[in-house]
């Protein structure tokens, strides 16, 4: 195995594209190194992207936050302004693993590992984040919901790297939240995860919403019908019922040791309600519950 740690995205991309054998980006390594050790994958080349400035920075511009793909969960948590603007996204990323894993794990890695249960991905999708994808020949943007196309399958060509995530500018009366169901209270993989971001007008009527579910299909989903169920409402009981029904209807989960199909479908509705209540409370300037 060869190790390279270039200082530009272009160089990193060239290295990955030029390698005829298996080549992988190395971000925090909390998925990749586990897979290498357990012989799931045997790359000839790993390209460490952490020496590339853009992947490691959090910038705030008039267009919104620009978060480097290799920023760690611990660093996201320490960024007070990001946390204040996007508490749901930061809490989603902070649910990944332990303190030690947080010291290394990144949102780029969480997305590109291609797990349907990746915790930060519904947070990014709900936020309306775009992945900024770089190759040796240029850049393109892709909504995060279009990056993962199936279990371990990504819409990235050989040599393409996610450099950063661009979040939209935060508007007043907006709030986001993420909740997951796990059999334990820490250190487990989501049975269902739900990220919701919404905006209200001054009277508290929801004017825009995005609802994303994780671990209920072959990839994290953006559920337009669930968002429609709450737009135009003040999140009253009827709206919450409709939201739960739409969330459950969008699931096409698997049975596994963590949860059956029926359980996942039911929990998706329950979590969507609770997540929406948290996001709504935050949009109204009230602090949402944690977990």
């Amino acid at each position: 195995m060869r190790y390279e740690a270039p200082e530009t995205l272009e160089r990193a991309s060239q290295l990955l594209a030029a390698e005829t054998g298996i080549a992988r980006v190395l971000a925090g390594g909390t998925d990749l190194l586990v897979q290498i050790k357990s012989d799931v994958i045997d790359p000839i080349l790993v390209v460490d992207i952490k020496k590339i400035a853009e992947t490691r920075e959090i910038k705030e511009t008039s267009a919104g936050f620009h978060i480097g793909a290799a920023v760690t969960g611990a660093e996201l948590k320490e960024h007070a302004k990001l946390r204040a603007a996007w508490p749901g996204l930061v809490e989603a990323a902070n649910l990944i693993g332990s303190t030690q894993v947080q010291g290394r794990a990144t949102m780029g890695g969480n997305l590109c590992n291609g797990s349907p249960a990746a915790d930060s991905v519904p947070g990014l999708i709900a936020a309306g984040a775009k992945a900024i994808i770089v190759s040796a020949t240029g850049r393109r943007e892709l909504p995060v919901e279009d990056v993962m196309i199936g279990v371990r399958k990504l819409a990235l060509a050989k040599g393409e790297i996610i450099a950063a995530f661009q979040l939209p500018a935060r508007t007043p009366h907006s709030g986001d939240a993420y909740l997951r169901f796990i059999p334990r209270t820490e250190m487990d993989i989501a049975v269902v995860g739900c990220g919701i971001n919404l905006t209200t007008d001054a009277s508290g009527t929801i004017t825009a919403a995005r609802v994303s579910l994780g671990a209920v299909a072959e990839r994290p989903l953006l559920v337009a019908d669930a968002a429609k169920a709450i737009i135009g409402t003040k999140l009253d009981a009827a709206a919450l019922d409709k939201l739960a029904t739409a969330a459950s209807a969008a699931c096409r989960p698997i049975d596994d040791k963590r949860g059956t199909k029926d359980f996942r479908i039911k929990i998706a509705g329950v979590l969507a309600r609770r997540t929406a209540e948290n996001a709504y409370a935050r949009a109204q300037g009230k602090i949402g519950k944690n977990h």
Partner: protein
Amino acid sequence: MAKHHVQTTVNGDAVEFLCETDETLLDCLRNNLGLTGTKEGCGTGDCGACSVTVDGRLVCSCLVLGVETSGKKIETIEGLAKGDELHILQTKFLEHAALQCGVCTPGFLVASKALLAKNPNPTETEVRYWLAGNLCRCTGYDKIVRAVMDAAQDMQKAKPKTKTNTKQGA
């Protein structure tokens, strides 16, 4: 492929070692530098026995490549005691019987030190969440949590008081 020549700082000392690309920081510490205080429990990020800090950040050394640590500052369990004088966390672990077989202990100590550096006065819940990635098959955790809380209190008391009117430690 030639081995990588890595120069780092471990517990304040400049060190250099040679490693293969696929050797983890844990392998390098134990096999190349003879620092066997850092333990391997799982090798997959689940148990925390291999906890060290890299540039002040708590990580599992089993999930870091040795070659990635070039130019970084690494702190391990060997850096806790100053000569014969134990770190207060070590003393408290002994007092509270917070270890039995001891395999998890270096990881708990390094992780607890990182916690207290960031949050000198943690609540019990904060201690438990911070240490959720450190597994112990012997103690049942309560004694460990008590030792950490006790150490935090003593460290607070031991802090030089800058003002005469500071609140008395509860």
